[in-house]
C-alpha cells in the first residue's frame, strides 16, 4: 500500500516534470519567427514515415543503421512492458497482465529479453566506436566536455536499464522456482536464465530484495531518463518526428526569398512609385537576416533541439574536412546553447532581458560562416532533415545587409555585380564577345 502511494507520487511528479520541460521546449521553439510548413501534408507525412519511423537514411551506413534500428525498435517495444510495470506499481500487483495474456505473455517477455540483449550488444558497439575507434566525428573538438559525456551517459543509462530489466526477470524466476509468495509461474526467460547461477548461494530473502530493487531501479531509471531528455542531445527520439514532418521539401538548392526584401525591391523598381513616400514610417523596419535566435524561424530552432550531434553533417562538410573552423554540427549546437540561455533568461525575468549577447559573434563566429561553400552536403547527410545551411545563410544575410561586414573580396564581387551585372569588372556590352574570340 505504501509502496503504491510512493510509486504513484513519483510517477505523477515525473510526468509533471516532463510536461514542464515540454512546455519550456515549446515556448523556446516559438521564440522563432513564423514560417509556413502546413503545406503538402500528405507528402510530409510520408517523408516522416520514411525518415523518422523507417529511419531510411540511417542505413547509408549499414552496420550503424542496423544497430541503431535495433535500439530504436527495442526502445519502442520494451515500453509495452512498461505499461505493466506502471500498472503493478500503482495497483500494488505483480505481473498483473500475465493471467490475462497466458502463453502470449510468455512470448512477449521472451521477445523483450531478446531485444534487451540485442540493445546491450548494440550499445557496447556504439560505446566502443565512440570512445576507442578514433572516428573523426566522435573525437572532434566540438564534442569536448559535456556533449561527449552526455553521449556516454545515454549509453550507460541504456545498458544499466537493460541489465536491471534482465536482472529483475532473473530474480523473479529464481523466486518462481522456489514457489515464493506471490511469484507465480509466469514468463519465459531465454536471456535472464543465464543470470541464475549468480543467485545459487543467495538466501531467498536476499533474492526478494534484489528483485524488488531491480524493479524499482528500472522504473526509476526510466522516469529519470524521461526527464534527462530535455537536458540532453537525446531529444531526437521525440523530435525526429515533427522535425522530419516540417523539414524543407523544396529542392535543396533553392534558398528562400526574403519577403521583406521583395517589398523593398518592388518599391524601388516601380517607375510609378514615389521614392520619398513616407507611408511606411509607422511600420517597424524589418531586420534583414539573423544575428540572434529570435530572428531565426521556429523550424530552425526545432532543428537545434532535434540535433543529436551525430556529426554526419560535419564529416561531409568540405570546409570541415579541410581543417576550417566551420562545423555544421557545431552551428546547431551553438544555436541550441544560445536558445537555452535565452530560455533561462526568460525563466528568470519573465520576459527576455537584454544580456548583451548574440548568436552571431558570441556563439558563431564570422570565420565559421564565411567558410561555407553552400554545397548542401550537411543538409543531405542529416538523417532527420536538419538544415544547418539555412542558419548559416541567415547569419550571412545579417552580416552583409545589416552590418556590411563581408570580406573585402566579397564586397568587390558585389560591387561589380551591382555596376556591371557580372561578378567581375567586365562590361555588359561585351557579353557576346565570346563568339569571336
Amino acid at each position: 500500500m505504501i509502496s503504491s502511494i510512493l510509486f504513484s507520487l513519483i510517477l505523477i511528479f515525473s510526468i509533471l516534470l516532463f510536461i514542464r520541460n515540454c512546455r519550456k521546449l515549446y515556448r523556446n521553439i516559438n521564440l522563432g519567427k513564423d514560417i509556413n510548413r502546413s503545406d503538402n501534408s500528405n507528402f510530409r507525412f510520408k517523408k516522416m514515415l520514411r525518415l523518422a519511423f523507417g529511419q531510411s537514411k540511417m542505413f547509408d551506413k549499414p552496420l550503424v543503421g542496423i544497430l541503431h534500428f535495433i535500439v530504436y525498435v527495442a526502445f519502442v517495444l520494451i515500453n509495452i512492458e512498461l505499461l505493466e510495470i506502471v500498472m503493478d506499481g500503482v495497483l500494488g500487483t505483480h505481473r498483473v497482465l500475465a493471467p490475462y495474456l497466458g502463453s502470449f505473455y510468455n512470448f512477449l517477455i521472451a521477445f523483450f529479453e531478446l531485444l534487451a540483449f540485442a540493445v546491450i550488444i548494440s550499445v557496447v558497439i556504439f560505446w566502443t566506436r565512440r570512445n576507442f575507434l578514433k572516428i573523426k566525428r566522435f573525437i572532434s573538438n566540438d564534442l569536448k566536455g559535456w556533449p561527449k559525456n552526455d553521449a556516454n551517459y545515454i549509453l550507460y543509462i541504456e545498458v544499466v536499464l537493460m541489465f536491471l530489466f534482465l536482472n529483475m526477470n532473473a530474480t523473479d524466476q529464481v523466486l518462481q522456482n522456489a514457489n515464493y509468495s506471490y511469484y507465480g509461474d509466469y514468463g519465459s526467460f531465454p536471456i535472464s536464465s543465464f543470470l541464475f547461477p549468480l543467485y545459487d548461494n543467495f538466501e531467498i530473502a536476499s533474492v526478494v530484495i534484489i528483485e524488488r530493487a531491480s524493479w524499482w531501479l528500472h522504473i526509476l531509471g526510466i522516469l529519470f531518463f524521461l526527464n534527462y531528455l530535455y537536458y540532453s542531445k537525446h531529444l531526437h527520439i521525440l523530435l525526429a518526428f515533427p522535425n522530419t514532418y516540417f523539414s524543407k521539401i523544396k529542392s535543396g538548392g533553392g534558398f528562400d526569398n526574403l519577403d521583406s526584401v521583395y517589398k523593398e525591391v518592388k518599391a524601388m523598381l516601380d517607375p510609378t512609385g514615389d521614392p520619398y513616400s513616407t507611408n511606411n514610417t509607422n511600420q517597424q523596419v524589418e531586420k534583414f537576416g539573423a544575428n540572434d535566435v529570435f530572428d531565426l524561424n521556429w523550424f530552425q530552432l526545432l532543428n537545434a533541439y532535434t540535433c543529436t550531434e551525430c556529426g554526419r553533417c560535419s564529416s561531409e562538410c568540405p570546409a570541415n574536412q579541410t581543417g576550417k573552423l566551420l562545423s555544421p554540427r557545431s552551428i546547431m549546437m551553438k544555436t541550441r546553447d544560445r536558445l537555452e540561455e535565452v530560455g533561462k533568461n526568460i525563466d528568470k525575468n519573465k520576459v527576455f532581458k537584454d544580456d548583451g549577447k548574440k548568436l552571431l559573434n558570441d556563439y558563431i563566429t564570422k570565420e565559421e560562416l564565411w567558410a561555407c561553400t553552400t554545397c548542401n552536403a550537411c543538409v543531405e547527410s542529416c538523417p532527420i532533415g536538419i538544415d544547418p545551411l539555412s542558419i548559416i545563410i541567415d547569419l550571412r544575410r545579417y552580416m552583409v545587409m545589416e552590418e556590411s561586414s563581408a570580406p573585402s573580396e566579397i564586397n568587390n564581387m558585389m560591387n561589380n555585380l551591382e555596376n556591371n551585372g557580372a561578378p567581375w569588372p567586365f562590361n555588359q556590352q561585351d557579353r557576346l564577345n565570346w563568339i569571336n574570340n
Partner: protein
Amino acid sequence: MNIITIRELKDKGIEPEILFWVGCAGSFDDRAKRITKSFASLLNKAGVSFAVLGKEESCTGDPAKRAGNEFLFQMQAVSNIEVLNQYNFKKIVTTCPHCFNTLKNEYPELGGKYDVIHHTELLATLISEQKIKIDNSEFNGKKITFHDPCYLGRANKVYEPPRKLIESLNADLKEMKSCKEKGLCCGAGGAQMFKESEKGNKEINIKRTEEALDTKSEIIAAGCPFCNTMLTDGIKNKEMEDKVHVYDIAELLDKST
C-alpha cells in the same frame, strides 16, 4: 559561329525553342568561353533552334544570394525576369549549374516561371534522339571521371544525364570516392570563388583533385565552369597538367561529333 539573339529573332517574328543562358563565366572567363562555344557548336550541329540574350543578359544574382546579399540578388532577379518575360521560348538551358539552380528554384516565386534545364540534360536528350551522333570518339576506352557540381547533383538531383553522355563516348567512366549525393564540393560555391578561403590544413579543390587523381583517369569531366577552374588549378598544383585534363562534357562531346 552563327549565334543570334532572341531580340533579333523577335524582330523577325520568330520564337526559338531554346534560350541559351550563357552566364557570366560563360561570357567573360576565357576558359569558360571555350565551353560556351563547344555547347553552341553542338546546338548548331543538332539543328536546335536557339538564341541567346546577349547584352540583355545579366548575372542571375547567385553569388550575391549565397553571400547573403538578398537585396542585390532580388534586384538582379526582378530585372532579369522583366527581360525574360518579354520573350517566348520553350526552355532555358544553362551551362552553369549556379545559373541553372537559381533560375529553376529561386525565380519562380519572384514571377519568373520557366522550364530550366542544364546543358547535360539537353545533350543527353539530343543523343538519345540521335540528333547528335558520336562519330568516332577519340575518348574510346579512356578513363574519365565525373565531378558532380553541387548545384547540379545534390541540389537538383541531376546525376545521370552527364554520366550517360560520358558513356555515349564509349569512355570508361570511373567514379570518385565521393560522388553523386556524397560528391565533394570543388570549393567554389557559396561565393567562395571570389574570396580567399579561411584558414585550414588544405584547400578544398586540392582535396577534390586528389580524389579525382585517385581514379587514375586521364580526363576529369566537369559540368560547371567554376568547378572546371577549381579542378584545373588543382591539377596544376599537383603538376599533373601534362597527364590529366579537365574538360566540360560539352567539350568532350563537341570533339567527338
